[in-house]
């Protein structure tokens, strides 16, 4: 069944869904980034060596870490809330905890990538 939606891009971007909507959008962006990463990984396995140059680029690594880690941590929150419906009442608290965990893990991961890139 086809959908008919009359929502323009600007209206969608201005939607005040706050934290939950932001996590929803970032989860999708992260999933798309990981799908690209997975495709590149398959290409490397298939013997396309030029893709390996992109893999070793620190900017690419940081972009993948920023979006990929968010997808993984947000997915864990969604799974926990799905499996424990009683916790759904506290979903905003769960999102706040998720941001703290994400900031710590992502910050450390970016630090390690930058340190390796700068030869530290």
């Amino acid at each position, binding site marked *: 069944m086809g959908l008919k*939606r009359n929502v323009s891009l600007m209206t969608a971007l201005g939607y005040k869904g706050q934290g939950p909507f932001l996590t929803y959008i970032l989860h999708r962006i992260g999933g798309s980034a990981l799908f690209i990463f997975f495709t590149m990984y*398959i290409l*490397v*396995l298939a013997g396309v060596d030029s893709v*390996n140059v992109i893999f070793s680029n620190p900017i690419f690594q940081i972009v993948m870490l920023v979006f990929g880690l968010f997808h993984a941590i947000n997915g864990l929150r969604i799974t926990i809330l*799905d*499996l424990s419906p009683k916790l759904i*009442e506290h979903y905003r608290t769960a999102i706040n905890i998720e941001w703290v965990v994400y900031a710590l893990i992502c910050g450390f991961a970016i630090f390690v990538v930058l340190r390796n890139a700068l030869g530290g």
Partner: protein
Amino acid sequence: MATRTLPLSKRGFTFETFMWAFTRFTVIAMYGLILAGILGALSLSTQTGANFGDILYWAFFPNLAENPLGQIWMTILAKLMVIAFVLSACGHGVHGVLEILDDYFTSPLARRWSRNFIITYAVVASLIAMYMIWTK
């Protein structure tokens, strides 16, 4: 806010329900495999003296690195775990991409072709990954 739960028997076992459950189970499998993979690689690292990072790099890129483990059972175990992880990731990711495509492709024909394309992609990518990881 009141919680709402609906038993599986009342949801109807449609393609969407099946894929929702499939997506949840594959992601739980991925979390489990990540944990088991890290612990396994650490354990193998202490037993063989191989570098932890080298083990993971070889496990995921066997065509680019030398096998640092040596013993056959370790090699087979590592390959099986990586194949299980890649298949879980592929199944999980393919359904996620399909959901995104369904949101933007609104005609039934476009949805059918996007579904055909993504399922073909999943099969081909899985076969390439399994063959390369197992044989190299």
